[in-house]
Each structure stands twice: as C-alpha cells, then as structure tokens.
C-alpha cells in the first residue's frame, strides 16, 4: 500500500517568507508526527497529532511554527517569517496505534528539504 507522502520534496525560500509543508499519512493511521532533521541537531520531534488534535506541541521551536490536521488525515506544517536556521529536512511520520496503547511503530515519509536563503 501507499506509504507516507510529503510535498514539496524540496523548497527554497527567501528569508522572511512563509512556507507550508504538507503530509499525507498512511491511510487509517490515526497518529501523525512531525520531526526536523538538521546536521547539527539530528532528528528532533516537533509535534504530535492524534486525530485532529495535538496533545503534544512541545517540540515546536517558536511561535513562528504551527501545524494543523484536518479530517484526521492530511497535515500542514506552516513556518512564518522563515529564518536561515529553519533550513532542515522536515519529516512526517504516521502510526496506527494511539498513545494509550503504548505501541508506536512510526513510518516516515521522504521529507521536505527546506532551504532558506
């Protein structure tokens, strides 16, 4: 079956512009996660969705970052007024199980490579 898909695969933007990154999870997966991968910081958690709600936003680095999920499916990560330090690969993952069950096999998409010039 289809895996997690993300778009765009690459995005180059000028400092100060807003960007939107999209994630389509595996069909039927109720949990969705955003992570960021950069050379200096490795892979870091940003936000977790269960359905359309986000019980854990603890990894969002600043109020310039926001995310939403609609219909329990597609999610959009928005970065406002982008800065050069936002340059990274943004990865989305989805999982079948909810948080209360404990099992969290997460399957990742290919990522969006964001470059802020």
């Amino acid at each position, binding site marked *: 079956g289809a895996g997690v898909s993300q778009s765009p695969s690459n995005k180059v933007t000028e400092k100060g512009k807003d960007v939107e990154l999209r994630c389509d999870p595996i069909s039927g997966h109720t949990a969705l996660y955003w992570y960021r991968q950069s050379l200096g910081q490795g892979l870091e958690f940003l936000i977790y969705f269960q359905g359309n709600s986000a019980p854990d936003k603890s990894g969002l680095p600043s109020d310039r970052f926001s995310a939403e999920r609609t219909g329990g499916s597609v999610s959009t990560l928005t970065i406002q007024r982008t800065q050069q330090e936002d340059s990274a690969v943004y990865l989305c993952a989805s999982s079948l199980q909810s*948080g209360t069950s*404990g099992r*969290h*096999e*997460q399957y*990742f998409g290919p*990522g969006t490579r964001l470059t802020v010039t």
Partner: protein
Amino acid sequence: QKEVEQDPGPLSVPEGAIVSLNCTYSNSAFQYFMWYRQYSRKGPELLMYTYSSGNKEDGRFTAQVDKSSKYISLFIRDSQPSDSATYLCAMSGIVGGTSYGKLTFGQGTILTVHP
C-alpha cells in the same frame, strides 16, 4: 548530556562482516526501542521494534535491549554493500501513564560496507 547517545562513526567494514551498532540512554522511562535505516536523501525506514528488555531477530538483523544497563544494540550479520546507510536508534516511553509515541533519536551511525 543528550538523552540518547550514539557513536556517529563513520564505521567501515568489509562485505560479510558482522556489524555491531549501539546506543546508550539515560531516561529510565523509555520502554520502546527502534532501529531505523536511512539512505542518503531518503526518510528513515523502520528496521526493528522491541519492547522492554530482550532480543529480537529478523533475518540478518538482531536487536538487543538491556534496560538494566540502558544499552541497546543492533547486529547485522553477513553485511552487504546495500546495508551502507545511516542507522538511527530511537526510543519512546510512558510518562504519567500515557505514551504519545514521541521518539527521541540518537545521532545516527554512518555505516559503509565495502565489497
């Protein structure tokens, strides 16, 4: 100090060798342990998933978890050039009775298997 420590390598081995990768961690709440493989410019691919202490084998891959030592390992037998990738350990835990599945990753180990 990071919650999860992983030697970034790089690690270079000849084809057919047994590869040992490992991570240490400090948070005793971690109960779920994973290994991901990531090829260049691709997303991480789940290789192994284990719960609590013990061993798990899948083909050429064996994952070990020793919670008493806060140490996890991944062994690759009969390594192949196609195994050349970055290997990431990841873990999640239960806090306050709830596990949201937030993964904490090691830095990743770069592995090259040469013919």
